[in-house]
């Protein structure tokens, strides 16, 4: 995508020895007594796409929320661009301008138009000049074929359009990392595609992304690495291709089975 202005991504995407963009070490998260994430560690190099898979309740959303400071963590460290994050709200606020996040749904502000939604972060938080941000916004809107909705309110958009705007809103801040949490889960089937295509395009342009999804075909195509979570633990860590063709654990295999609801062999 035209707007990915981070000079590092494309060039460095193959250099595995580089400092990873994001590095998570021994991360622990509990709600009260309930340990939801236990000793999670992984590194995300620049320009790579990580897909988080796992059954419902395994902790995928929680993990992705921890990476944006929306949850406080009980142990371990998170390093972003080589610098450890101390975890104060103020620091996170700064970092969140470099980490874009898109949620399952409903996250556009209903009281603002599409343009106001998109401009809010860049102008108010990043204090960039409106005249500089607007052309960028217009290019991105054109990219996703939603230019005509510039002044529409979110309620006038379909679910798929809303999610594409949410992605544009995050991209306009020029993030170095994008987090996606089941962004197509509450969409009608026909709208899933337009959102996934946009994400595929971002991946091709070497945006670094961490993605939670239930769309297996998409996951297979987009994932550089798959992390398979269960019960707050990373059970498998494989390249995308390997995970889908020969998962290492039984648990992952039966998970993959369950995700393709009706296969061609008869059941009864």
């Amino acid at each position, binding site marked *: 995508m035209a707007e990915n202005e981070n000079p590092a991504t494309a060039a460095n995407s193959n250099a595995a020895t580089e400092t990873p963009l994001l590095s998570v070490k021994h991360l622990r998260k509990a709600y009260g007594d309930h340990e939801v994430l236990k000793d999670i560690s992984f590194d995300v190099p620049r320009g790579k796409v990580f897909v988080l898979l796992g059954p419902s309740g395994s902790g995928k959303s929680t993990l992705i929320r921890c990476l*944006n400071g*929306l949850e406080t963590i009980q142990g371990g460290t998170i390093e972003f661009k080589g610098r450890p994050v101390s975890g104060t709200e103020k620091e996170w606020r700064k970092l969140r301008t470099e980490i874009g*996040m898109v*949620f399952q749904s*409903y*996250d556009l502000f*209903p009281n603002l138009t599409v343009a106001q939604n998109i401009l809010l*972060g860049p102008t108010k*938080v990043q204090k960039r000049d409106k005249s500089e941000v607007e052309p960028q916004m217009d290019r991105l809107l054109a990219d996703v074929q939603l230019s005509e909705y510039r002044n529409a309110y979110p*309620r006038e958009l379909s679910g798929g359009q809303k999610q594409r705007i949410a992605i544009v809103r995050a991209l306009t801040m020029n993030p170095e990392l994008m987090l996606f949490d089941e962004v197509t889960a509450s969409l009608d089937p026909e709208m899933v595609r337009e959102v996934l295509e946009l994400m595929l395009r971002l991946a091709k342009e070497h945006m670094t992304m961490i993605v939670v999804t239930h769309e297996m075909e998409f996951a297979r195509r987009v994932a550089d690495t798959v992390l398979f979570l269960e019960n707050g633990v990373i059970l498998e860590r494989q390249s995308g291709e390997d995970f889908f063709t020969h998962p290492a654990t039984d648990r992952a295999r039966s998970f993959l089975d369950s995700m393709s609801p009706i296969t061609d062999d008869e059941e009864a």
Partner: protein
Amino acid sequence: MSWEVIQQSLPLFEKAFILTLRLSAIAVILATLLGLVVAIARDSRIPVVSQICATFEELLRNTPLLIQLFFLYYGLPSIGLKLSAETCAILGSSLLGAAYMSGAFRGGFGGIPKIQIESAKALGLSPLQMIRHVILPQGLVRSVPAMAANAIFLVKETSVFTVIAVPELTNTARDLIGMYYRTDEYLLVLVIAYAIILIPMSIILTLLERRVRRGTFGD
């Protein structure tokens, strides 16, 4: 029923009508402002402040305005604090109103989905920016229906001012009945006077509610 009796009483009722309107307007405005303050203070991180506000709200919401007025008007002078009848009326109804309005605001702001606040955070908005661009506009809109109901409630409660000799509508009607014993005529004027204030008010507020909601959430 005598038209003449009604006509003769109209100048007095007109005065009372204007007074009722004036006191209602002051009470609603003060209650709204004070209610917002109380609602915000109840969310305060300083426990004493939020507890005082909670107590204030609970005390006033759960006692009748009439006894609050008696206490302000007849009780307080015993300890050396003398407020005029109108002051007591305004004070009583705007404090009571504030307690109700605070509830309306808290309900409205509490109804904002968590995801809205999280996506504001995800954009890196500071708490103040979040309040300015996300929480206030959405919360106020959500508070409007309860605020409208409270406003109507407050206008109706001005009828209780009669007990501390404020010459508003109810007081005037009772006074005339006591002097001239034309019960039917004065009651009729009284009911019509309230209808003239409250029917348009209720219609306008319902329209406003709908408009504001549609303007923000489109439903």
